[in-house]
């Protein structure tokens, strides 16, 4: 196999600028981008099932309809269940959240007080002196301010989520046909390179999205098991939330850890060993992720140098907020693949010469005809 030339600094400049522009656009149409992305995940997850049904003798269109029909049914049932739960238990959730926020803030205050005893410098800190009196009010304010908003956001996103099975259906039914149509419109000279481009984008997206789904399952299982052994409440739910939060590179893991520590501090306010045990558990799962799970699931797809990743996360957050944080690396990966391949095609003099020759032949034919 021939080595691909490495993209130069100009190419990387173009990749970063285009990524920023796409993120800006995505932030404006997030209501469509999120279901679109979930539909892609659904497509990659369900495609093997459709292929299995085709192998069993069904026509491709029928197999697609059967599978997406099931997906639609599951989604509608899920939404109905979620809505009924949200309406009947909202008050209960608010109380539980307030309870755990309070527990987390108590733990924070206690830790600061202990630090103040051991380190005289910390004793004079304004934060330590003011913390105990502000804790109750802060917990109440936090719950009032954010939980209601979170529930409203969930209701706001539900119609968009209903788009997921609909989009998945069209990608499963006509995705391949649409791809073939696009390839047919490409001039013959660039045909093979276009196939290569589609293949690279498809593989990168598939291994990233499916890899992330597998990684979420693995993280949920490890964290759930660890938290259950430590005796923390809701181990699987907390593991799942922490694993989903980890989709946000770097900051997500930290947020997950803070959440679990908050719960542990409330369940076991006087057992520092359990609380620190949760932190150690997170550290272990993080290490497992980086050295075992990530290479096994996501592989090297869409993985960049850590410095570039961090810089791009800042760019993503600045351009598109939390959505930018989540989307920046996959978008960067796809843009990099497209730009690199387009760069190779546009700078290949042989291909351009072949294209000009074909155009010339077309003109000659038109004149003769």
């Amino acid at each position, binding site marked *: 196999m*021939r080595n691909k030339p490495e993209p130069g600094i100009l190419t990387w400049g173009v990749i970063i600028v285009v990524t920023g522009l796409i993120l800006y656009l995505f932030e404006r149409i997030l209501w469509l981008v999120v279901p679109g992305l979930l539909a892609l995940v659904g497509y990659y997850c369900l495609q093997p099932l459709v292929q299995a049904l085709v192998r069993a003798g069904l026509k491709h269109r029928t197999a697609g309809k059967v599978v997406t029909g099931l997906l639609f049914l599951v989604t509608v049932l899920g939404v109905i269940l979620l809505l009924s739960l949200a309406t009947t238990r909202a008050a209960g959730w608010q109380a539980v959240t307030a309870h755990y926020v309070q527990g987390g803030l108590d733990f924070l205050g206690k830790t600061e007080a202990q630090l103040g005893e051991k380190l005289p410098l910390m004793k004079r800190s304004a934060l330590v002196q003011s913390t105990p009196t502000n804790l109750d009010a802060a917990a109440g304010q936090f719950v009032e301010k954010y939980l209601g908003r979170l529930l409203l956001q969930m209701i706001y996103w539900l119609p968009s989520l209903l788009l997921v099975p609909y989009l998945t259906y069209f990608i499963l039914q006509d995705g391949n046909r649409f791809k073939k149509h696009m390839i047919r419109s490409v001039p013959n000279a660039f*045909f093979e390179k276009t*196939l290569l481009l589609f293949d690279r984008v498809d593989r990168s997206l598939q291994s990233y999205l499916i890899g992330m789904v597998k990684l979420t399952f693995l993280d949920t299982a490890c964290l759930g098991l660890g938290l259950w052994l430590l005796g923390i409440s809701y181990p699987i739910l907390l593991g799942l939330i922490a694993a989903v939060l980890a989709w946000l590179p770097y900051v997500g893991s930290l947020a997950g850890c803070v959440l679990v520590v908050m719960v542990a501090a409330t369940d076991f306010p006087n057992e520092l060993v359990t609380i620190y045990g949760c932190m150690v558990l997170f550290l272990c799962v993080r290490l497992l992720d980086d050295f075992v799970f990530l290479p096994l699931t996501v592989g090297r797809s869409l993985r960049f140098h850590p410095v570039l990743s961090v810089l791009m996360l800042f760019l993503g957050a600045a351009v598109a907020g939390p959505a930018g944080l989540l989307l920046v690396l996959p978008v960067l990966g796809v843009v990099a693949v497209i730009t690199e391949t387009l760069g190779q095609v546009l700078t290949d003099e*042989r291909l351009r010469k072949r294209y000009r020759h074909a155009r010339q032949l077309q003109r000659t034919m038109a004149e003769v005809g």
Partner: protein
Amino acid sequence: MKWSFNFLRGSADDQRIENLKGLSLFKRLTARELRELDELLHERSYQKDEVIFDEGDTGLGLFIVLSGRVKIVSSHAALQRLAPEFGPGDCFGELALFEEEQRTARAVALEPTQVLALFRSEFVSLLERDRGIGVKILFELSRTVVWRSRKLLANEPHLPTV
């Protein structure tokens, strides 16, 4: 042979499957297998004298002639003598299905020509999910490669035969 591939009407219609069945490379496949394979095939049309691929290009897939004729021009004399021309039903560029190496010959359409292309990466994914289809196609491809190797050796008496 009349080819009317209209993807908007659905690619897996019976006539199309029958046409695929008529190609020697796919003659062992069942209708169900042909439908699955059909999802991966790309149809291209070339004008007279248009280059399909060039010597030195990175080979990415195999081509099958549906109609028209294709001339092979190579700087390697033996290859040039081996198969100077391909017609309907013939396949060429088959080594690109096995490895991403440079093409050893140039393929040019001698007249308005329609070909089907099978991209290596898509073929490999088909092999992974349905080995039955892969074995049948690879068997026919191996026969073609063996036949061409024998022909090459017959023209080059100084090469040892095994």
